């Protein structure tokens, strides 16, 4: 007698999601050293990496928020499943309304969670990744405190990352209980590969597990 059971369907009936919000600095200074171009390339790397892993492609859910211009915060399209994620082409110019952008990210996370709850979709803890090469040109203190509180309440995981030497690590660090990290050189590609692996780890995390993210030494500046 054969021990292989014939005709068994093995498909995923669950609807678990791992939400990610990218909050990206598109102020004028991002034009220097073609940082915005490298950021766009990095997003394409993220797209490829997310789609390459079947579980991440299905579970990852992505939203991009850009900030720049005349204190403009723009939600670049809707939340999309990682398998359908197409990175926007970011343009740089103008100011750095980072506080407003992070407020927007927190609101988006909460409304996305409410939507998923009402649809009966379960979800992992959302990640908000903030990338900036400068410092806010708007009111940021209250929002930074809100971000830290949301983190303390385990509502969200905030990663604040400075780009280059002009990034104000002290202010960026005020948005996360983990402080801020700084991108080593302009290693956007390495950063987004790491981010994709992090989403992968979150997507695959078994219940009751504390997700250990990979070490950041592939892209973060080593503190000396």
């Amino acid at each position: 007698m054969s021990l292989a059971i014939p005709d068994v369907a093995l498909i995923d009936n669950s609807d678990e999601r791992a939400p990610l919000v990218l909050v990206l600095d598109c102020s004028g200074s991002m034009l220097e050293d073609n940082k915005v171009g490298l950021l766009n390339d990095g997003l394409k790397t993220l797209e490829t990496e997310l789609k390459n892993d079947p579980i991440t492609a299905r579970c990852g859910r992505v939203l991009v928020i850009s900030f720049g211009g005349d204190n403009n915060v723009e939600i670049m399209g809707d939340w999309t499943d990682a398998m359908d994620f197409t990175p926007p082409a970011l343009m740089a110019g103008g100011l750095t309304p980072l506080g407003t952008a992070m407020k927007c990210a927190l609101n988006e996370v909460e409304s996305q969670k409410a939507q998923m709850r009402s649809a009966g979709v379960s979800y992992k803890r959302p990640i908000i990744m903030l990338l900036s090469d400068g410092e806010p040109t708007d009111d940021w203190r209250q929002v930074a405190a809100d971000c830290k509180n949301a983190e303390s309440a385990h509502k969200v995981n905030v990663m604040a990352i400075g780009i280059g030497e002009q990034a104000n690590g002290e202010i960026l660090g005020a948005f996360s209980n983990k402080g801020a990290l700084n991108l080593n050189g302009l290693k956007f590609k390495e950063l987004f590969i790491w981010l994709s692996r992090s989403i992968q780890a979150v997507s695959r995390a078994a219940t009751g597990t504390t997700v250990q993210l990979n070490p950041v030494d592939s892209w973060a500046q080593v503190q000396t």
Partner: protein
Amino acid sequence: MAPLRWQVFLAAAAGSHHLDSATPCQDAGHYLLAGDTLVGVVCDGAGSASHGRDGADFVARSLAQLLHEAPAADLAAPAASQTIATALERTRSQLESLALAGERSLRDYACTVVGCLATAGNAVFFHIGDGYAVFRDAAGACTVSPPENGEFADQTYFLSEAGWQQHLRVTLLPAPHGGCLIGLMSDGTAPFAINRSRDGFYAPFIDPVVNFLRTASPIDGERALLGVLADERTFSITADDKTLLLALAA
């Protein structure tokens, strides 16, 4: 009434997460059968617990044994709820002694519990944390004990927690009869064994499995069930360990 006869099959397969890191499956299951009385338990050791696998194995064995030894009168509803709570309490306190002896804490042995207690006239599910238990009657109607998660899908509750009693759920089931089916599973199995509306088995998965098991010997049946759980197609569904206990009544 003809006596109830159970065929029970239990298999556990390590998920890709543990295969990749060469660590063992953190799930454990155990069952005991005496006449028409079946006690089955599936436990999922917490990934964050250093001895989750040991905890799962200990709890599954201890609970099955304690309930197996309970007098028949204590297994009938409504006494069953108290019998189960007492067995859980005793198991937890034995586990605590084990942890202390090894200079560890109970948290190091954290695991979920999903189990069934079924005799000819009565059946109940008992459940702490995630995983699923499903009772399907001969006509196909299902009673489900669903997972209990925190806000996030990767949070759940364990027997080791101080407030475990608040998370113990006991579900009374219809009296088992020929043709009914009981399934106990860890959360790794649920995405492909439970249907999208989460109110029963996913028929394209369970029907071929049950059809095969009905005519299989215990050894062949368990090997075949393990083959399904370890199938590489499951790796694109979940990285978690997968355990399934199926009890078919005839």
